[in-house]
C-alpha cells in the first residue's frame, strides 16, 4: 500500500513539476560591453589623435564627432551637513557608429550616447548605479560647449564651472561645481599617448579640483552637500593598443591642496605598461606630468565581488617627485558597476603609508577585471 502511495505521489510530483515549469517567466536578457574593445580599433573614417594640437575653449568642451569615442567624466566626494559622506560619479560617453546609408527618419543616427550615474553612500555602504543610452538624434543626447546631456540628465555651463542636474528616481543630484584652479592638460599639451602605434592616443584635459555645492536626494530626502569634484575630458579614436587589458585610474585630492592623477595601463599579464602616466598639480595650480618612472603602484588587497570577480581595491602608491608614499583604500568595497560595462569606480581614502594618517580623498577606477576566477 505504501508502494502505491509512493507511485501516486511520484506521478503527481512529475505532473505538478511539469505544470510549474510552464508558469516560469524567463529572465531578461542582458549582455556586457568591454570598454577596452570599444576603445580599440576604430573604422578608418574616424580621425586619429597623432600629435599635439592646442585646445580651444569653450569649443573643445563640446563634442568631437570626427573621433570615435569621447567622454565627460565627473567624480566627487561630498559631505552632508550632518556629517555623512557621499560620493558621486556622472559620466557621459559618446561612441561614433560605422557609416551607414542615409534614411528618411529623424531617428537616423551615427552616434550612440551612454550615461552612467552613481551615488556611494558611505554611512550605509550602499552603491546606487543607473545607466542610460540614447541616440544622437532628435536632441535626445549631445554635447555643445554650453551643455552636455542625455535625455533629462543635464550638465550646463555656469560661470567658472558646471551645474549638474540628474534624477535617477532612486536618487538625484543637483550640484554646482566651480573651478578652483586652471584646467590641466594631460600629456603633451593635452596629447596623451597610450601606446606605440600612431593613433594610440587621446586628447585629454582635467579640472582636478572643483568646489561642489548643492543637494543630493537619497531615500526620498534632499540633503545639502559640499565637497570636491573632478572632471576628466578625453576623446580619440584608437586610444588603446590591443596589447592592453585594462587600466587602474587614480584621481586623488590631498588635504594640503595637491592633486594627483595617475593611470596604470595593464597588459594581458597584469603588468604595468610603459605608457602609464599621470599628473601632479600643486596647490598653486602649477603642474608637472608624471611618466612611468615617476610613480609605482602595488596592490595590497583584493576583493571578490558576488559574481566571483576579483578587484584590487587597496593600493600602495609612491609618487617620487612629490615624495609621497601613500595607501589608497576604498570607503567601502561594494562600488562595482554591474550594467553594460563591468568596472569598479568608487570613493577612496588616502592615508600615509607609514603613519596611517589621513591625507585626503579621491576616486579609483578599475577596468578590465571582469573575467570570473572560476
Amino acid at each position: 500500500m505504501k508502494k502505491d502511495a509512493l507511485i501516486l505521489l511520484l506521478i503527481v510530483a512529475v505532473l505538478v513539476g511539469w505544470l510549474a515549469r510552464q508558469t516560469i517567466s524567463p529572465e531578461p536578457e542582458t549582455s556586457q560591453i568591454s570598454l577596452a574593445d570599444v576603445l580599440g580599433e576604430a573604422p578608418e573614417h574616424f580621425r586619429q589623435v597623432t600629435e599635439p594640437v592646442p585646445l580651444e575653449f569653450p569649443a573643445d568642451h563640446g563634442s568631437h564627432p570626427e573621433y570615435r569615442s569621447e567622454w565627460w567624466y565627473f567624480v566627487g566626494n561630498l559631505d552632508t551637513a550632518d556629517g555623512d559622506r557621499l560620493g558621486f560619479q556622472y559620466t557621459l560617453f559618446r561612441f561614433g557608429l560605422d557609416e551607414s546609408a542615409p534614411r528618411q527618419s529623424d531617428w537616423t543616427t551615427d552616434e550612440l550616447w551612454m550615461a552612467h550615474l552613481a551615488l556611494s553612500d558611505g554611512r550605509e555602504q550602499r552603491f546606487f548605479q543607473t545607466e542610460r543610452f540614447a541616440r544622437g538624434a532628435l536632441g535626445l543626447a549631445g554635447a555643445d560647449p554650453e551643455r552636455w546631456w542625455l535625455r533629462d540628465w543635464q550638465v550646463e555651463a555656469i560661470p567658472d564651472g558646471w551645474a549638474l542636474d540628474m534624477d535617477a528616481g532612486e536618487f538625484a543630484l543637483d550640484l554646482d561645481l566651480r573651478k578652483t584652479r586652471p584646467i590641466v592638460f594631460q600629456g603633451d599639451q593635452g596629447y596623451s599617448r597610450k601606446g606605440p602605434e600612431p593613433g594610440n592616443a587621446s586628447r585629454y584635459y582635467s579640472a582636478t579640483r572643483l568646489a561642489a555645492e548643492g543637494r543630493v536626494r537619497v531615500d526620498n530626502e534632499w540633503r545639502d552637500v559640499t565637497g570636491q569634484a573632478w572632471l576628466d575630458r578625453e576623446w580619440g579614436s584608437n586610444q588603446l593598443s590591443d596589447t592592453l587589458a585594462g587600466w587602474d585610474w587614480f584621481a586623488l585630492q590631498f588635504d594640503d591642496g595637491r592633486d594627483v592623477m595617475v593611470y596604470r595601463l595593464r597588459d594581458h599579464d597584469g603588468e604595468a605598461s610603459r605608457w602609464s602616466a599621470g599628473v601632479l598639480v600643486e596647490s598653486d595650480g602649477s603642474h608637472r606630468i608624471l611618466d612611468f618612472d615617476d610613480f609605482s603602484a602595488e596592490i595590497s588587497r583584493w576583493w571578490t565581488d558576488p559574481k566571483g570577480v576579483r578587484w584590487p581595491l587597496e593600493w600602495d602608491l609612491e609618487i617620487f617627485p612629490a615624495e609621497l608614499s601613500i595607501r589608497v583604500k576604498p570607503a567601502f568595497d561594494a562600488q562595482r558597476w554591474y550594467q553594460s560595462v563591468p568596472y569598479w569606480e568608487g570613493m577612496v581614502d588616502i592615508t600615509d603609508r607609514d603613519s596611517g594618517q589621513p591625507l585626503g580623498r579621491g576616486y579609483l577606477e578599475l577596468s578590465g577585471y571582469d573575467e570570473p576566477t572560476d
Partner: protein
Amino acid sequence: MRLLIQFSRRFLYRHPGQLLLALTGIAAGVAVVTGVALMRDVLMQSLDAAAEALSGTDSVRIEQPGGPLDERLFAELATTSGAPDLIPVLRTRARYGDQILEWLAIDPLSLSEGGPMRLSGPATGALVGSERTAMTSQRTLERLGLEVGDRISVRAGGADIELELTAAFEQRRELDNRLIMDLANAQHLLGRQGELSWIEAPADSRDWLEAHLPEGLVMVDSQQRRDSAARLTQGMRTNLTALSLLGLAVGLFVVHAVLSFLLVQRRRQIGMARAIGVTRGQLGRLMIGETLVLAGLGALLGLVLGTWLADQLVGLVRAPAAELYGLVTTSHVMPTWPVYGLIFLLALGAATASTASVLRAALHIPPGLLSRQSDGQVTLSRPVRVVLVSSLAVAGLVAIIFSAALAWVLIGMFLLLCACALLAPTLGMMLIRAWQRFRPLSLSGRALGMLGAARQRLGPALAALSLALGLSAGIAMMVLGFRVAVDDWVERLLRADTYVTLSQGRIGPELFDELAEWPEIESLSSVRQRDLGEGVNLAAYDTPDPAWQGFEWMAGGGESAREAFLTGQGVVVSEPLARHRNLQIGENIDIPVPDQTFSAPVVGVYRDYASDRGTIAIHNSIYRELFDDPYRDSIGLYLADDIDRDALDARLAELSDAIVTTDRHEVRRQTLAVFDRTFRITWALAVLVGIIAAIALISALLALGLERGREYATLRALGLTRGGLARWVMVQTTGLAAAAAVLAVPISLMIHAVLSLAVQPRAFGWSVGFTLPIGPWLVLIPLALLAGLLAGIYPAWKIARRDPAGMLKGSS
C-alpha cells in the same frame, strides 16, 4: 478505515479498464477547458504582449486618439527633468505569406536598464546599423520554417518590404509573432517619417505624465488594454468557453457513468462491508476520497494535456484573431498558477457533484445485501419530468428570443440542451422499442427489447451521446451555413472586374486620375481604410453606380441615402457597428478627425462580415477633405465590354512595375480562405467535443456490455450460441448508437438555429440567413453507427468467452 482503503484498492486494481476510462474522461474534459482557458488568456494578453516585453506588466501607453503621435513629443518629454524611462513605438501589421505578424519598431537605446528587455550590444548595433534588420523569437522562426540570416519579404503598409532576420530572442514568448526593428529603419521603410504609434512608460510614472502631457493625448494602462482586447474578442471567447464547458460536461458524464458502473459492481462488497459494521459515514468518506483521488489525478493529467492543447488552439486562433481583430497572439500560452488552480478545483468540485447520486445510492445499500442487481436508482416520475422539460424549454426560448445579451442566449441554449437531455432517454427508448417491433421475435428484436428495458442504466448515456453528437453536427451546420452567407455577400460586393493595388503601398492620386482617363475603363471605385481605434474601421469609398449597388441594405439606403453619402450629409455603417452601438437611421455618428470631430447622420446600414467591430463608410472626397490624405489602398476597375484583359494588364504593367492586379474571383477565393481559417478553431472544438463523446460512447457501451453479464449468462444457459450472443451484444450497442444519432438530428438543428440566428448577431453583430446544410448529418450518423458496432466488439468477445455458470453465480 485502513481495511476499507485496502478493499477499495483491490477492487479498483481488478478493474483497470474502468479506472482508465474514468481517468480519460475527466482528463479529456479538463484538457478542453484548460486549453480554451489558456487560449483565451493569450487573446486577452495579445494587445498587451508587446508592452509587457518592452516595459513590463502594468505599463502606461501614451496615445494620440485617432491618429499617429508626433515623434517630437517623445524628445520633448524625454528631455524634461524627472522624465521616466520612455520607449517610442511604431507599430504596424506585416503579412508574411498567409501569416500575420506584428511589426514593432522601437528605439533599442531607450529600453530601460531595469526593464524586461535588454538587447545585447551586437544586437543593438545590428538593429540600428543595418537598414533591413529585424529580430523575432526563436519559436517564431521555427514556426515559419526560417533561420537567423534569412531574408524575407513581408507586406506591410500596403508595400512589399524585404527584411533580414539577424537574431532571435531565445525565451521571450511575448515576442512570438513579432518583428522587432529599429525605429529609424522602420520609419524609412514604411514611409512614416515623424510618426509614432505610442509611447510606453512605466506604471509608476502616471503622476509625472499627468503633469507634463500636452492636452489631447491619452494614457492607456495595461488594464484598459486588456479590457479592450476583452471587448474585441468577447464574442469569440464566450463561444469557445461555452463549447469547452460542454466538453467538460460530457467528460464528467464519463466519470459519472464509470463510477455508477463501478458501484453496481461493488453492491455486493458494500453490502458485506455494511454487514460487518462499516458505518455510512466511513463508507461516504471512502467513496468521496476515491472520487477526489481519481478526479485529482485526472485533472492533473487534463491540465498537462490542456496546456499542450492550448498551444495547438493558439495556432488555430492566430489567424482569426489577426484577421478579425488585428490582434497578434503569441505562439505559446503563458499559464499561471491561478488559472491552473481554478480549473483543478472546478474539476474536483464538478466530479464530486456528478457522483453525488452514485454516492447516495451506495449509502442506501442495506447491510448484508448479497445481490449485485440494481434495484433501481432514484428517478423522476413522468409528470415531474414533463413539467421540468417544459419549464426548461420555455425558459430557454424566452432567454434566447427576448434577451439582447450573448450570455443569456448561451444560458438559454444550455437550458434547451438540458431539456433535450431529460427528454432523450424516453425518446431514445421509444425509438429502440419501435425498431424492435419490426422483427420482435428475431434475435435482433429480442436484443433490442432487452435494451429497451434498461432505461435507467442507459438514460444518461443516451442523453450525453445525443447531445454530444448534436452539438458537433449543429456547430458544423452553423459554420457551413455561415460560409454560404459570406460567399453570397462577397459575390454581391465584388462588382469590379479587377482590383489594383501597389506593391510599394498606398496609391497616390495621380494613378487614380490617370486610370480615370483610360477609355477601356468605364468607371473606378476605390477604398481607403483607417483604424478609428477599438477595432472600428473607417472606410472611404469612391462609389460609381455598380459599386453602390454592391451594398446590401439592412436598413436605409436608396437614392436619397446615396445623395447624402456623396455630399457628406450622411454616412453608412456596417450591420455590426449599428448593432453594437444600437444605431438607427437618422441618428448622428461622430468620427474623430485630427483636431475636430466630424458628425453626420446614419443613412444606411449594410450587410458586412469583414469586421465584427464594425465599419463607418464615408465618400472618398469627404475623407480627403477631413483627413488631408490623398491616398487610396486599392482601386476597382469597371471595364467596358469586350476589353482585351491581357492588353489591359500589359498597359498597366507599363505604367508601373509596382501595380498588382487581382481579379474578382481571386479576391473571392482569398476572402473565403480567410473565412475558413477563422473557423478552424470552431471545427477543432467541435471535433474535440466529438472525441469526448466517443469516449463517453465507448464507456457507456462497455458498461452496457459488461454489466449485464448475468442476463447474458442466462441467455447462454438457455441455448444461445457464443456467436449469437456476440451478435446480440453488438445489436444492442449499435442500436443504442443509432438511437443517439437519430436524436442528435433535431438537437443539431436546434443548435444550428440558435447559433446562426441568435448567437451570431449578438456575439459578432452580423445576421446570418438560415440554411440547411445536411452534410454534417451524412457524416455523423454513419460514424455513430460504426462506433456503436466497433464498441460492441470487445464486450461481445469477452462475454462470449465467459463461463455461463460462473456468471450465473454472480462473480464478475
